[in-house]
């Protein structure tokens, strides 16, 4: 499995990280090095093995589906790069 610049560009897009076109060949090369390392997993016989979902056998606790916290709009917005009139502000998303 080898990653080309087109795949690297697609991955960058999916990850929402801007990568300049001239940086793509080096990025693809890095992916190939790391994936080459990961390929070792193909040597393992995993027939009939369950993929791990929880490392400690625990049953998640249940609680009433009720409101336990809230009323802190100011706190929630206090770290926003741009907050206006009680909302997070972002560039226009609908025409």
């Amino acid at each position, binding site marked *: 499995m080898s*990653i080309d610049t087109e*795949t*690297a560009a697609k*991955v*960058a*897009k*999916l*990850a*929402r*990280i*801007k*990568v300049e076109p001239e940086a793509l060949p080096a*990025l693809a090369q*890095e*992916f190939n*090095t*790391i*994936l080459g*390392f*990961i*390929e*070792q*997993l*193909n*040597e*393992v016989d*995993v027939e009939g*093995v*369950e*993929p*791990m*979902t*929880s*490392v*400690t056998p*625990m049953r*998640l*606790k249940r*609680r009433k589906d009720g409101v336990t916290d809230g009323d*802190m709009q100011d*706190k*929630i917005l*206090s*770290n*926003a*790069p*741009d907050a206006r009139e009680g909302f*997070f502000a*972002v*560039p*226009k*998303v609908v025409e």
Partner: protein
Amino acid sequence: MSDLTKMKIAEARDALRAGDVTSVALTEACLSAIEGAGALNAFVHHTPEIALDQARAADARIKAGDAPAMCGIPLGIKDLFCTKGVPSQAASNILKGFKPEYESTVSQQLFDAGAVMLGKLNMDEFAMGSSNETSCYGNAVNPWRAGNDDTALTPGGSSGGSAAAVAADLCLGATGTDTGGSIRQPAAFVGITGIKPTYGRCSRWGIVAFASSLDQAGPMTKDVRDAAIMLQAMCGHDPKDSTSADLAVPDFEGMLTGDIRGKTIGIPREYHMDGMPDEIEALWGSGRQMLQDAGARIVDISLPHTKYALPAYYVIAPAEASSNLARYDGVRYGHRAKLAQGDGITEMYEKTRAEGFGAEVKRRVMVGTYVLSAGFYDAYYNRARKVRTLIKKDFEDVFAQGVDAILTPATPSAAFPLGQEVSDPVQMYLNDVFTVTVNLAGLPGIAVPAGVDGHGLPLGLQLIGRPWEEGDLLNTAYALEQAAGFVAKPAKWW
């Protein structure tokens, strides 16, 4: 009184209770040590006012006779922990300016016990790294040097600032976090003790998430007793973390008898790595002998899937990271890129993340994105999770055979020069070869300093315990510590 900073937590606790020293005096001594240690770049946000307020409150508590063990003890807190009103950046530019409105459960528990926060500690960005070189603050520096060579060495990572600060006596203990070895590897590189408890022992609430199924907090301290005391205060059930275990926390310090007669210690043959320095092999052999002399039964064991732990980790951890780090989008906190005319929300995300994340973080987020993407999910992510099941089963099998703890080297080398391995990600990943299995299996693991190499640099051994048996593990570590008698300290150059 610079000697105050050299105190261990247990000594300081006893001196505080006896009225021989005040928390304010201890705290002031640490603050001045920190001021003089800028060259180590361990503390990246200083909180002297908070520290002195907390110290005064601790002194009042001690006077009133209400003093838990950690009361009045000055600590450093890794930058990964959210601390209310204090910058908490995970050493990333994308969280520049972020001041949480809340306190992480672990730091809150320490403060409730009376501990004092001196400031925030350097680390690898989002805890992704093994040398502290991916930090947005620049790397921390190891207080140790190789003989007379003044080459700057890495304190390890990701908890490199925590390691450097404790080893250089800037604080009495520090919090760390460990996803693949980030407490144990730096502890070994600077000659201190670091324990990663069983997954679920410490609440992850308020700790910036890297790989949620692997991340655990733990203490980094000057010896095993201090680790027991500090871990005690950090552990416990937290309803705000659904994976935190609702189990009673035993009295870890009370379990330190040093008596390990009749215990069975396993030596895994797969941890003999090609190209491992002779000094590490020799240290491991002498550790084996020490435990045997202390009355333990030593058995050779096999953990057949060890070799596949690192590749599995480098699928699972990036996959979880790509999901966890999706939240850094320039909307709710931290950095937002300056946008050009006509840029929409997608450009905002892409530019913000390109500017805010460092190279290693971007690399891992993109690898994670790839292994989770349509068409590759089964081949990579699901396969890695199946291998993880097998790695955990390896440990379950040896524990079922009666093994109480497993002895391994902590790292494949002593601390290496800064700048040496940063260009080759896979080479850097190999640092975690002995520690990463423990995270994949959710087990407790502890690094104990056990000797020095030919250049006088510290080397550590790792003990791995049964799930939830940190007390027993700490006791075995205590026996090893007593036998090893490691007391070396770095000569002050900073």
